[in-house]
């Protein structure tokens, strides 16, 4: 059993000669004196499904916040489709092609399911202030196209019949799915999913796995996901990075990760292999 170099890139063969959709170089952030993430390197190909795992508090969500520019990194750089994101804020990062869901669901609870997706389509429906107030033709056209598109996106998860429900009234699993639809509506080139299977039962998780693959295939986008459900991670990820104490301790295919002694130690503690 070889230990893999945690810094080596791990893009699937079909994506190797294309510009990576996301590239982190030596990314790091300190909160006061605490180094939350350090020397984080990752390269994600344009159609790759990649997993980010690690024990609680390892810094996984912090990395998502760094990638979406909620936090500005202390060290290192993030490249989106080859563009440096140094001076971007969250809004600009989304426009540059990154969309995400949240660990603690952040839907617009008082808005309907349809309206939630339409907020995702906001920049696509480009009409300005006066066409809206005076109901000019550009308003009608744009609203019609936007609503059709929203229903189409909702149909990925078979949610088109829930379009008029309030988002806050949906069951938990559907709320998670709606967040994914809303993120997809912003037309990203990489989708970040923060624990998409949290609170789902095994059959729902299985369905979610199918849908994540379907999303990758239909939209031809990359997906980076944080997940604790090993069945899901091992089932769909082509590459996995394992994080502990803010550092990548292992990187590789699911098979390589499963048998990596450092990973087993991080999850089960020293001597975990005997347990």
């Amino acid at each position, binding site marked *: 059993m070889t230990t893999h170099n945690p810094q080596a890139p791990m893009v699937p063969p079909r994506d190797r000669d294309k510009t990576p959709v996301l590239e982190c170089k030596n990314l790091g952030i300190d909160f006061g004196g605490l180094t939350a993430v350090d020397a984080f390197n990752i390269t994600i190909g344009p159609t790759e499904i990649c997993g980010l795992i690690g024990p609680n508090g390892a810094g996984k969500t912090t990395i998502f916040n760094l990638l979406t520019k909620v936090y500005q990194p202390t060290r290192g750089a993030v490249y989106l489709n080859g563009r440096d994101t140094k001076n971007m804020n969250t809004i600009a990062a989304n426009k540059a092609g990154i969309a995400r869901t949240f660990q603690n669901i952040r839907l617009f609870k008082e808005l309907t399911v349809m309206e939630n997706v339409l907020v995702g389509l906001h*920049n696509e429906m480009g009409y300005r202030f006066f066409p809206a107030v005076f109901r000019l033709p550009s308003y009608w056209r744009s609203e019609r196209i936007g609503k059709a598109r929203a229903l189409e996106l909702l149909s990925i998860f078979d949610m088109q019949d829930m379009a008029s429900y309030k988002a806050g009234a949906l069951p938990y699993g559907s709320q998670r799915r709606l967040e994914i639809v809303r993120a997809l509506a912003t037309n990203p080139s990489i989708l970040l999913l923060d624990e998409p299977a949290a609170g789902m039962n095994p059959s729902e998780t299985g369905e979610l796995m199918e849908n994540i693959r379907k999303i990758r295939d239909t939209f031809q986008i990359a997906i980076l996901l944080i997940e604790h459900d090993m069945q899901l991670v091992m089932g769909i990820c082509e590459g996995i990075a394992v994080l502990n104490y803010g550092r990548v301790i292992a990187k590789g295919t699911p098979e390589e990760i499963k048998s990596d002694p450092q990973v087993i130690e991080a999850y089960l503690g020293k001597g975990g292999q005997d347990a």
Partner: protein
Amino acid sequence: MKARFQISMPVRYCVNLILMIAFLTAGSFLTQSGLLGRAQNSIIIQVGFYIILAVSLNLVTGYLGQLPLGHAGFMAVGAYAGAIFWKSGLLPETPSLIVGLFVAGLVAAAFGILIGIPALRLKGDYLAIITLGFGEIIRVAIINLSDITGGTPGLKGIPKYSSFLVVYICVLIACVAIHMLMKSRHGRAILAIRENEIAVESCGVNTTYYKVMAFAVSAFFAGVAGALYGGNQGILAPASFDFMTSINILVIVVLGGMGSMIGSVIAAAILTSLPLALQAFNEYRLIIYALLLIIVMVFKPSGLMGTYDFSLSRLIEKAVTRLKVPKEEGGVYHDDP
């Protein structure tokens, strides 16, 4: 999306237009015919300003979810801008009236943007305090700029333009414009900011732009209401735009239900006409007023109407759908755009 009765869009607009015209005709007949006393007439006009003020404040408090306390400041800016324009007599009467209202709105909106850009970086209590400060600065500035504004004694001789028709046309324009704005991508962005700011930003929506937009539109209509107020009184004194006026408008919005336009309209009508209705109880008037507020807040903390928004067409559609298919409950329906 099964058997569901739906009124088509053009019909819906025509019905609403006819109702508005009918309302204006009936109202102006009632106020001019002498059926009502002077006091009643003046209350009806006052209800008009307060509806505009409440509906415009509701845009920022109810829909955007921020808490500004300087609405009277924007009202004052608009009132003085409009009154000074009208007094200048640059244009003949009718154009002067219309242009003056626009000037009032635009000057107030400009102040809204000016205050909004720094103030909206703050949230909650901080925003409340900064806007409260702004309102006071405006009032003090008006007192001190006595060459232009007439100072403490007030600006006199403002043409009395604010008839029932003028005021209520402005009321309808304010309500319709804000409604149209809210049922568009801009309105959805504003509501989404109230719901979850981090999530909106991650959807690529420019939150600062929409906060300032909501603030500016709100200030615009507050300015128009201010100008109408001046055109009704014929005199403007800085004392009428103090902190208590801002609070009164906020009370209307909270009582009506934050985020409900119909709530703001009803609460404006009730709270403005209440003092007149309670004249018989003279000395207990303020106690009854305060008690009423407490009772509503205890038993219905979300306000009279909650976040319910009224739509006549939707009401008719629901009723007809229910009549046609009595067994089918809670079917899926489209929101009207």
